[in-house]
């Protein structure tokens, strides 16, 4: 490495870390976010407030109700006496759902006619409503299965034996926390990089840098270094927190994850450098990063599966480096998948990295103001 490139890299690090506030801003928020979001971002239902309106006195319905009382997904907040109590309870959000068992339930069930049970769910948050409905259904299905076998005295003609691979208890935290590695690595690397050129442009020192003997590719390396080191470093730290604090199993190894992480961060840096070459001010660079981060996160599969999106949006996700890295980081964590599974993620990500870095280098020279 030539001494002048080395000097440039040192200068870039100083620019980022000399100021105490900016040092803190790069290091503290990601850790805080990881801790808060690691706990907050869950699709598992826990102690959802449930009200029960059971008009029936029989043992059958009491047995059914007790299933709900025992489920950790629900917390019974009250037993209702009349239908009129339901509406205000749900309106006020005191209950997410109400289980309503009719007067004839046990009698109907004894006659073999089947008892109809109503579940009313607050649909204001349709996500939570669907989750709750799914829990209710599975409790009812289990109950039905046992009831049939008990009353007929025979086994069902066939039964389901369900096994979930890689995440046997279906904890959604195991899905979300590795995703946060990808999310935070992107935010940190992008903001740090997008800022470096824009700050110099605003101060007018970038033009001075361009007239030094430094080659464009050397400037590129100098500008990319802080983002690369900070991005990869923080992502590795987050992996450690995920494993030792959140106890998410890391089945695969870091040797598979690290090269993928480096390529991912490089592709983010390329995008960050492009944003900052298009911006004249720091403000534009930051807002530009925002305009990239928001759609990139929503179209990555971070919180909702890509397979559920409409086709043209699925096609768009192929341009998004986060899409590829998310697949890799989750599969390395939970499945222990090795490098041989990831060629179809690694090459598009590398292609994005090379293209954006090359474009950024070109833009350095051709966007003078």
């Amino acid at each position, binding site marked *: 490495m030539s001494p002048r490139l080395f000097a440039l890299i040192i200068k870039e690090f100083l620019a980022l870390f000399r100021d105490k506030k900016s040092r803190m801003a790069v290091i503290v928020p990601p850790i805080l976010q990881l801790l808060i979001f690691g706990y907050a971002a869950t699709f598992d239902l826990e102690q959802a407030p449930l009200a029960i309106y059971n008009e029936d006195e029989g043992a059958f319905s009491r047995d059914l109700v007790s299933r709900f009382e025992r489920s950790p997904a629900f917390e019974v907040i009250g037993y209702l006496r009349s239908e009129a109590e339901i509406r205000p309870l749900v309106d006020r959000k005191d209950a997410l759902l109400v289980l309503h068992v009719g007067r004839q339930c046990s009698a109907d069930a004894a006659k073999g006619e089947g008892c109809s049970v109503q579940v009313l769910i607050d649909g204001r948050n349709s996500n939570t409503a669907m989750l709750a409905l799914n829990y209710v259904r599975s409790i009812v299905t289990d109950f039905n299965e046992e009831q049939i076998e008990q009353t007929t005295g025979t086994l069902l003609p066939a039964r389901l034996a369900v096994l979930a691979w890689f995440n046997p208890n279906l904890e959604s935290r195991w899905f979300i926390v590795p995703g946060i590695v990808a999310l935070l690595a992107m935010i940190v690397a992008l903001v740090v990089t997008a800022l470096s050129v824009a700050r110099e442009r605003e101060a007018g020192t970038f033009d001075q840098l361009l007239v030094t003997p430094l080659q464009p590719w050397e400037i590129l390396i100098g500008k990319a270094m802080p983002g690369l080191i900070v991005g990869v470093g923080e992502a590795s730290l987050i992996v450690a927190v995920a494993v030792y604090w959140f106890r998410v199993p890391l089945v695969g190894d870091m040797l598979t994850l690290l090269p993928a992480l480096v390529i991912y961060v490089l592709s983010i840096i390329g995008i960050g450098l492009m944003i900052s070459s298009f911006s004249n001010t720091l403000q534009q660079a930051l807002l530009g990063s925002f305009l990239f981060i928001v*759609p990139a996160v929503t179209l990555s599969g971070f919180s909702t599966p890509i397979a559920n999106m409409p086709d043209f949006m699925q096609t768009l996700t192929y341009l998004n480096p986060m899409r590829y890295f998310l697949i890799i980081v989750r599969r390395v964590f939970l499945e222990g998948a090795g490098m041989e599974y990831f060629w179809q993620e690694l090459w598009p990500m590398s292609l994005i990295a090379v293209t954006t870095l090359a474009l950024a280098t070109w833009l350095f020279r051709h966007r003078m103001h």
Partner: protein
Amino acid sequence: MKPGSLLRLKGIIRKEWLQVIRDPSSIAIAFFLPLLLLLIFGYGVSLDAKNIRIGLVIEQPDSASLSIAGGFEHSPYFAPIHLSSIQEAENALRASTIDGIIWLRQNFAADYLNNQSPPIGVLINGVDANTARLIEGYVQGIWFSWLEQQAEKAGRTLRSPVQLEQRIWFNPQVRSTDFLVPGILAVVMTLIGALLTALVIAREWERGTMESLLVTRISVNEILLGKLIPYFILGMGGLLLSLVIAETLFHVPVRGSLWLLFAVSALFLWVALGMGFFISTVFKSQFVAALVAMVSTFLPAFILSGFIFDIQSMPTLIQGVTLLIAARYYVAILQTLFLVGDVWSVILPNAAALAVMGLFFHGLVHRRTRKRLE
């Protein structure tokens, strides 16, 4: 009011307004990003799984096992693929080319005919726990209707003892746009109110133009008000645009009153502006203010507001943290106004919480800015 106050105020507003509309990036944040968010969330975000790729391994095809396969082929949720052996299927599951396996072993048919209750093997990739749980639910549904069919063929009726009748109130078709739009409004208002103002004012501190403003005859109140008004207008503009799009494109219902919607939004915007002002007066650097605004206002509006993740399912400590997030109160009011109506028992306490937060932040900003003058 001091003489000439209105004139000075007008001057500041004009200067601030020019600064906003001359910078394409702030216009993009106020109008382009809401549009983008609405389109992405309106069309792209859904947690309900469709076209699940599932591998069917039937080791000994006969009428019973084929009718199970038929259940999967006719289901709108599944896109089944027939595979010849369990090894092949497990490899496909490992390579993530399928999301689950239905496995009927060699002796399934024989055991079935002998009433031995043979197992139907279901292997699901559990990495995405939420999708896995949905798949399990769909498989159960198919299995049960298959049981009913078989019983009917044998001349018996299989009646499930409990028949579940579900009603989703306020949003019977469970359209996710209906609940996402209120959340997006909160995110957009946070972006304009907190992030944009934090950046712009931190820039004035960074460049020293704030100090020059403070030493003029303009009072602190006039400066703050002059800066508040343009961003307030921008924010309400962003809201109006988002509402129009939500109505024309997604036909989201507004069951509460419109004036209440605007009043509450104005209140929330005022709180967000207070947070933006506060962050910028404390940190005085664009870079730091942007990162702090992002972590303390924007990301919580997404994750801690009840917009995507259910607050009640979070650990108690985190639920406590959400109490400090202004967006939480706004989202609760919006979801009610959009889907239920004017439920005062939801609106009043949440609006009160917003008012307290707004007073707190604006009060702090006043104190800190005044101190600088001494």
